[in-house]
């Protein structure tokens, strides 16, 4: 039974957000007032945050909604990004379209939160569409002109295609398992248990289609997180739209896509992890390398941040690869440092705030008439707006992973999880793969430093070229300040976030045990272990 009272209470934050977003839509048609609706939107996020704090915490697995620490952490992240995006957007909207844009941002954030706690393919797809559809409209209303239209069209068609691929993958999964629930409980079998049962003996017949399903799902979600080879849209779309929208695109779909990958590939399909980790590893290496190398030549900051967001997706896939590898070749010992999912969650939080912050600085320097986006336009920023320049420098150093900022701990957790596979694995065959993965990650960190430093170098070392100083908008600077505080506080004292990430990691590791009748079957992973 889906709509029992417990579920409703647990989903209270999402319900509040959707309800108020609808109100903001309707109200906006009667009274177009940017300041009022912005305030109301911020209050809504506050109320939703209180609801999330009170009801979101206790772990609970139901057939459709999964409340665990993985979902809990990422729901907070989505909620906070929604609030920061609202702050960024609030001062740049025209009165006429303000309420629409604010409502759409709120809906997209809600969609991300839904994906984070979805335990069912249908709810997950619903959540993903709740991100995509508002995004199409946002891209279109944000700015008039051909560039924006081009960006919108590009995003729209590719997004539709990716949704179709994802659905196709889901349909294979449904066909294999006969259910849309990821992890069953209380005697009901979910995809996890069914797949283990189906592939338990010989991988023939229907079960042989499981790899096909995972490939299609990787393709569909790869678009959301802008992983190679589904990344082509990102730089063009980021460049063509506003700073706020680019921030939204760099953050919300990425959270949703990654958590969906973890839920499907790591939690629901451990049965074919031995196949999936290869796929994930190759995509990870390609994504970070291509993202970073292409970013080196960019002079448009939004385009550069677009490539940078691709590269960071690659880093986060390191975490996914490690989690899949652990599923495939898990030994008795557990790496006490970090599991893959924990590292991924930690890095995701760190990435989100640094990226949002960078876009917030750009947003608050821009006006509707003049859009600040190129390196030349921020040259000498230190002399005009020292605060903005300092904030931007903080975000750039954090993205580059230099201590003592948050990005450093993100790199630490990711590399640690990957090196942990090498030290803890009992299987010598996978060691070289993970060594390649982690060395590629390290070299990429160095390549990435080059283009982040170019931004800092332009702001601090070059003379002023963009002489007309704008008045920074309080909303934008507020958003940037919030992000900077988070980045610096996590950098100095990462303990709280580390605890949260570990809890998320354990949630992914200790998914409900299999029902008795299935658990007696031998999974291919353990069969392979036994043969060794």
């Amino acid at each position, binding site marked *: 039974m889906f709509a029992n009272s417990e579920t409703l209470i647990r989903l209270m934050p999402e319900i509040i957000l959707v309800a108020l977003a609808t109100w903001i839509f309707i109200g906006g048609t009667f009274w177009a007032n940017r300041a009022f609706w912005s305030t109301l939107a911020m209050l809504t996020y506050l109320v939703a945050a209180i609801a999330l704090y009170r009801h979101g915490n206790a772990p609970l697995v139901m057939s459709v909604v999964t409340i665990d620490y993985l979902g809990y952490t990422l729901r907070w992240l989505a909620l906070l990004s929604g609030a920061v995006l609202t702050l960024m957007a609030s001062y740049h909207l025209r009165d006429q379209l303000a309420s629409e844009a604010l409502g759409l941002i709120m809906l997209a954030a809600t969609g991300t939160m839904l994906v984070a706690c979805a335990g069912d393919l249908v709810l997950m797809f619903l959540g993903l569409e709740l991100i995509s559809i508002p995004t199409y409209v946002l891209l279109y209303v944000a700015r008039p002109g051909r560039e924006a239209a081009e960006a919108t069209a590009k995003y729209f068609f590719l997004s539709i295609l990716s949704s179709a691929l994802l659905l196709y993958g889901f349909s294979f999964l449904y066909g294999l398992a006969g259910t849309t629930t990821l992890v069953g409980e209380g005697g009901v079998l979910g995809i996890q248990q069914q797949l283990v049962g189906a592939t338990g003996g010989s991988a023939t017949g229907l079960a042989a289609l499981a790899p096909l399903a995972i490939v299609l799902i990787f393709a569909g979600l790869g678009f959301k997180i802008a992983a190679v080879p589904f990344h082509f849209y990102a730089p063009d779309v980021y460049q063509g739209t506003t700073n706020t929208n680019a921030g939204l695109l760099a953050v919300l779909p990425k959270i949703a896509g990654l958590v969906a990958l973890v839920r499907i590939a790591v939690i629901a399909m451990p049965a074919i992890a031995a196949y999936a980790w290869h796929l994930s590893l190759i995509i990870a290496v390609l994504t970070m390398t291509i993202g970073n190398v292409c970013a080196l030549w960019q002079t448009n900051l939004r385009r550069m941040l677009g490539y940078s967001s691709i590269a960071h997706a690659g880093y986060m896939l390191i975490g996914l690869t490690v989690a899949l590898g652990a599923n495939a070749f898990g030994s008795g010992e557990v*790496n006490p*440092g970090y599991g893959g999912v924990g590292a991924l969650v930690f890095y995701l939080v760190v990435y989100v705030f640094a990226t949002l912050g960078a876009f917030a600085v750009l947003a608050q320097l821009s006006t509707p008439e003049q859009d600040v986006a190129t390196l030349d336009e921020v040259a000498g920023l230190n002399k005009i707006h020292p605060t903005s320049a300092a904030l931007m420098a903080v975000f750039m150093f954090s993205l580059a992973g*230099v201590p003592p900022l948050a990005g450093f701990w993100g790199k630490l957790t990711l590399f640690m999880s990957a*090196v942990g596979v090498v030290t803890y694995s009992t299987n010598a065959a996978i060691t070289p793969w993970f060594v390649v993965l982690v060395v590629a990650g*390290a070299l990429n960190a160095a390549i990435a430093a080059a283009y982040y430093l170019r931004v800092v170098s332009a702001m601090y070392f070059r003379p002023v070229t963009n002489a007309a100083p704008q008045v920074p908008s309080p909303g934008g600077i507020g958003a940037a300040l919030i992000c900077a505080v988070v980045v610096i506080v996590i950098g100095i004292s990462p303990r709280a976030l*580390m*605890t949260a990430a*570990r809890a998320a990691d354990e949630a992914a590791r200790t998914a409900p045990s299999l029902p008795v009748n299935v658990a007696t079957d031998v999974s291919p992973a353990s069969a392979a272990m036994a043969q060794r």
Partner: protein
Amino acid sequence: MDHMRNWLLATIATPLIGAVLLCALGNLGRNVARWLALAVTVVTLILAGVVVVNFPADGANADQYAVTDVAWLSAQSGLDIHFSIGLDGLGVFLFGLSALLMFTSVLVSWEAIQDRAPLFYTMLLALEFGCLGVFAARDIMLFYIFFEFTLIPLFFLIGIWGSEDRRYAAIKFFIFTFAGSVLTFLGLLAIVLWHAQQNGLNYLTFSIPELTASLQQAPLPFVWQYWIFLALFAGFAIKVPLFPLHTWLPLAHTQAPTAGSVILAGILLKIGTYGFARFSIPMLPAATVHFMPWILGLSVAGIIYGALVALAQKDIKRLVAYSSVSHLGYSMLGMFALNSIGFMGGTLQMINHGLSTGGLFAIVGMIYERYHTREIASFGGLAWRLPILSFFMLVLTLSSIGLPGLNGFAGEILVLLGMFQRAFAESPPQWLAPLQVLSVLAVSGVVLGAWYMLYLIQRVFFSELREPSQQHADHRPVTDMNLREIAAVLPLVVFCVWIGLAPDSLRQRMEPTLLKITAATEQPLADRYTEETEITASALGATEEEKLSRVR
């Protein structure tokens, strides 16, 4: 003894507080900023002085000196990272040197920095915080954080206040160091994880003393040591810089402002050699022994290459920069001779180089402030014009080339003794010839060093008086060193003479720690020796038998 931990904490905290204060107070104007910075560095210097002076004179129990250990991330979170600081015989003098050179750096920047002065001094103090922290850290993560953190302030120092090519130099410096250090990071992580896995810990420990002790009890397998050594090598060798990874250094030096050069040469390069001594040698002894001949070879190549290139320079600062490549080669040579004499010499040479080259860069900066050029050809006979400056330059030069009675001699002689001992007395037979060639070549560096430095002195200070045309816009009448400038260089010269006359006071304090480090390599060296000897013996035996059979 216990109260020294508070002094040490205060020493490290003072520059940080100063930096935050300068940053928070905002637009103070140049005058307030520089006085504040001077006050902070003087206080730090006094505090550091107390800490260094109170170090036990026989160096006993050095790893317990002034230790503060607070959990940063709890063991429950899996990562048992501590804020753990303390000084031992390896770090204590480098720590003192950092505080001393910072004082010099503030004084040499006094007039030179006009633009955005508060920001400049903020960065300088932040850099001091990082440098002091690196040499005091007893936790791998803490060390790494301080190590990387030093990159940010220096990046700004070079990029904002450097010469015309500064942007390129700043980025090149950052990328080179960063690229190496991320690989170092992987190596360190592998050590930590391997240790936890072997001991079945349910948390990761990052404590340097604990890991060192444990890895000496139960060494890593050779394959692991081999790869981890290469990973650490990437970061530390770039930092030293070891030939052929030195290309970033002359560029960074010539573009950096004087204070930046003083700190870069005096302190930051030492982090590389310090890293080898702290991590590579004691934690990975078998790999150290395996790579020893190659590193010795690279060191000697650096010594000779650096000296020859220095000889050909037209710019005073570039000449001193290349001399750094040569001198750090000596430091590496001594350390990787892997005997107690050589190691002592290598460590001493780190301190000596900091004093003399730091001082030389300061004086080059003073010359540049007076004439706005550093071209050797445009100077001549400055000794007549600037007698005090020439005096200091000459003393520091003599210290740098190792005149007996000054500090350079004490370091170089120990390095060479150690190297000769390794090559002639302790070498496995198969390495005998190459090591002997290397040791003889290393001596030639002493001659070359004297040649390029004295040639410089002769051209700039002692030929006919020749000054650059004084057409420069803000040219003031050239005067000799004032009190501020003397105060900047005098302490360095005093220490040069003191170490030259009484090197034993340093040796006694450092020795127990250093012996512990070299002791780690004794067993692998002995293994290697027997192994090589057996191979040679069996090869010889085979040929003997062959000969015999032929005779029959």
